[in-house]
């Protein structure tokens, strides 16, 4: 990351703070007080957070946040392909989160992967009499119909925790009966303030039920690593894993994109954990560090500049063999990346982007936009913590607006004022900005495209950003009459 302070013309601390004040002016006193600390002007030099975060969402403001269940099912567990993931409770939560995250999977659906929707579809009577019996039966049925499933996760929805079911003991007894891992995860949606607690709870569950329960069949090697916080959105892991292998490393397991339960369970045997999404999985990196002495390193696979920095930082942790391979890889891809930049930069130079995503991309993708000549004029997270914002400060140009868990109203106001050429956020925001005639890309799901990670991903990313911004359809938004 560049050490000199970047300025954006027309954006000053004052202008940003004025914008924030004006935006909050319509709020009732109490809400304004609550929201104000979550909005700030970036102080790039400080290298530390300019906003408060990971607090309860203010009721009624229209937050983009999800819940703990979403963080557990959608993010951590869902991508593990060889497990049956049961949404335990009413039908909705599982239905809404079915196939809507784009964590891609290998294998044969219903045979070796289970990208389906499994639910106990709670009815009134289950609320009244409890769902433990139903759960027990359900686990037997799942095991019978899907014999190759390596395990089953039980992800509780709100009612389960409220009616006092004990899924942990059901899981434990059924696991014995069926002789497969059955992981209970108390990730009710009402827990915590966002998806984030769902990640944490899931990490703890992995710690408690999975890690250390398998061992790799192959002999160990000094180059054994695990790729953590890579969810294979739009095939990201199919870009990053081969890249790391090209660098001479053995990726023994991926957490959890296109993931396999047993390989994850044996991860305590690797020599290094490489983490991409810090927010959702730093917990287990720390656990493995403490418990098994496995060091970990945080990388950024977006855009050639960051990739190059990341690979070299990674190489530093290994011997010359790896260092040489890494340099060879960089030498191989640099010219390809250059030609991509030459194609798209002229059409994108100086364009402005605003971001609101989850726990990683609001900072990690900035470099990739900059590789294309673009400036990030505003960024924020749905569910980040202070350590995320600390990491964000140096990436953002100075004095640009930073927003934590913004309301749709705030986000819209900021865009009104900053006139970005592109907004990168989620499906709930997409059509709001497109109505305003502002090009938009979904940056959770890669907008049905991808991968965006790694060298392979940058080509797709660059093409998509150019397509969004330069699509001639935008010129037709305003009627000539």
């Amino acid at each position, binding site marked *: 990351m560049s050490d000199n302070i970047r300025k954006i013309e027309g954006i000053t601390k004052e202008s940003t703070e004025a914008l924030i004040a004006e935006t909050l002016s*319509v*709020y009732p006193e109490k*809400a304004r007080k609550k929201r104000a600390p979550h909005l700030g002007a970036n102080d790039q030099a400080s290298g530390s957070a300019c906003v408060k975060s990971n607090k*309860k969402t203010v*009721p*009624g403001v*229209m*937050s*983009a*946040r*999800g*819940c703990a269940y*979403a963080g557990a099912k959608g993010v951590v567990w869902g991508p593990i392909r060889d497990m049956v993931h*049961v949404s335990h409770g*009413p*039908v*909705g939560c599982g239905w*809404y989160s079915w196939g*809507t995250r784009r964590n891609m999977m290998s294998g*044969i659906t219903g*045979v070796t992967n289970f990208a*389906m*929707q499994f*639910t106990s*579809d709670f009815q009134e009577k*289950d*609320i009244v009499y409890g769902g433990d019996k*139903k759960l027990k*039966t*359900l686990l037997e049925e799942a095991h*019978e*119909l899907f014999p*190759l499933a390596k395990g089953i996760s039980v992800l509780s929805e*709100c*009612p389960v925790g*409220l009616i006092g079911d004990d899924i942990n003991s059901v899981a*434990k007894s059924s696991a014995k009966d069926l*002789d497969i891992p059955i*992981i209970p995860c108390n990730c009710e949606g*009402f827990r915590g303030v966002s*998806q984030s607690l769902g990640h944490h709870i899931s990490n703890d569950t992995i*710690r408690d*039920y999975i890690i*250390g*329960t*398998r*061992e*790799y*069949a192959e002999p160990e090697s000094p180059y054994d690593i695990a790729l953590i916080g890579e969810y294979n959105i739009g095939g990201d892991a199919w870009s990053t894993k081969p890249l790391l292998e090209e660098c001479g490393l053995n990726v023994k397991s991926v957490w959890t994109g296109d993931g396999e339960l*047993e390989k994850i369970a044996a991860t305590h045997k690797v020599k290094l954990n490489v983490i991409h999404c810090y927010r959702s999985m730093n917990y287990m990196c720390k656990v493995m560090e403490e418990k098994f002495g496995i060091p970990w390193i945080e990388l950024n696979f977006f855009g050639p500049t960051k990739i190059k920095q990341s690979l070299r930082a990674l190489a530093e942790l290994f011997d010359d063999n790896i260092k040489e391979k890494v340099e060879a890889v960089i030498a191989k891809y640099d010219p390809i990346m250059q030609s991509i930049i030459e194609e798209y930069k002229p059409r994108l130079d100086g364009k402005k982007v605003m971001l609101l995503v989850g726990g990683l991309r609001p900072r990690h993708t900035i470099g990739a936009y900059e590789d294309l000549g673009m400036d990030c004029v505003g960024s924020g997270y749905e569910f980040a913590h202070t350590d995320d914002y600390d990491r964000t400060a140096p990436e953002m140009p100075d004095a640009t607006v930073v927003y934590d868990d913004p*309301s749709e109203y705030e986000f819209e106001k900021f865009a009104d004022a900053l006139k970005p050429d592109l907004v990168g956020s*989620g*499906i*709930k925001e997409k*059509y709001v*900005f497109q*109505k*305003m*005639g502002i090009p938009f890309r979904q940056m959770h799901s890669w907008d049905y495209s991808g991968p965006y990670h790694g060298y392979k991903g940058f080509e797709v990313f660059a093409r998509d950003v150019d397509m969004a911004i330069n699509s001639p359809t935008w010129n037709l938004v*305003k009627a000539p009459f």
Partner: protein
Amino acid sequence: MSNLLGLEVKKIVETTPEEIERVKEWINTEEYKEKNFARQALVINPVHACQPLGAQLAAHGFEGTLPFVHGSQGCASYYRSTLNRHFREPAPAVSDSMTEDGAVFGGQNNLHEGLENANAIYKPKMIAVFTSCMPEVIGDDLTAFIKNAKQKNCVPKDMPVPFANTPSFNGTHIHGYDSMLVSILQTLTEGKQIEGRCTGKLNLIAGCDFNTGDYREYKRILKEFGIPYTMLADISDTFDSPCDGSYHIYAGGTKLEDAADSINGKATIAIGPYSTPKSFGWIKDNYSGKHVTMPMPMGIAKTDDFIMKVAELFGKEVPASLKNERGRAVDAITDSHQYMHGKKFAVYGDPDYLMGYVSFLLEMGAHPHHILCSRGSKKVEKELQALLDGSMYGKGCKIYMNKDLWHLRSLLMTDPVDAVIGDSHGKFAARDAGIPLFRFGFPVFDRVNKHRYPLIGYQGVVNMVTEICNKFIDIKDETCEDRQFELMR
């Protein structure tokens, strides 16, 4: 601290290719189908969502209305994104973000703070409150909460704040639609009934219909009749709004005063007996004028019924323009019957849609061979059976109540058909079976503009026939051997 299950620690063993092959074959067998249909507790790939989703749809159908989820915030994000993906449109809604402490103290504080903020920030004309699981489980008293909210001036006393209990562990989205709708109508029409007044209008409720083209088609038909109408819960402009460079949070919906005055209507038609029973029941007892509930007008015959009912209620002749439209639709089906005749279909979806699919298919001489209803009553089953019994093309067709798409997969693999009609979620089973899926249901996440083409009315017949026949011809052209590849079809 690990391995709480206490299972033995093993070396990783990969499943053998032979074993994978065996299971891959096995899940397509009759034997597997029986095990699959024996399921008691596990639901796999259900077709239905939960009540609040339908409640939000109904709320979006009214002018200046902000849907308000009383419950965990994640729920609202799920409903919104589902509607975003289907319509490719904004779906603004707020939640009061209940959390743990709600379980202890109840959700009143969240509700009040949420109402105050939502009202200040988004300046709605109406806030439609509905519940997700948490408050339903802990038993929040919405009636009291909202009364208190007005006393505390969280929202203006005169602002309509209808609310509906929409527990997700009971019924499906169509029931949430019904509960929210009836609450909105009750709230808006309260005290608005005027002795002797008649708006002269038809009140039309489209039912829990996610196709904006259908709403526009109803309105176009009534325009052809020259009959003034109030379409209740009109989402057509909400979810099919212009892109003109400005965002309007409340893009459409039934005018509140029209909705209020609807109680003095000349007649009310509630489409969709299965998605509007509560609303219709209440209207029957409280609205002036005549009241009718009717199935979705899908296919020629059901559209005829609708047209004739409208004509009868208003003592009008069927306009020539609609007669001609009918004739052109009939022309379309007689000209293309040979591409659908005798073809077998699997259909699934909400009861009101199913009735439409089935009668349309039978009209074309096609067989609705597998009819799968995710959640439905005996009444639904009986009505479907009656449709089948009414046609020689219904022979051998079977109805599967309260089954899911994993059951459907077993049916497709053991008793094959030519195509599936349903929503995007059916694409996996259809792919495994190697047959096309016609996305007439909700949601459609993987094609564009499907919601812009009506399935109801005579135009709906033309749209369905065109899509189905041309797809079958596509398949023929794409799969036939060279010597069968012809200019004419």
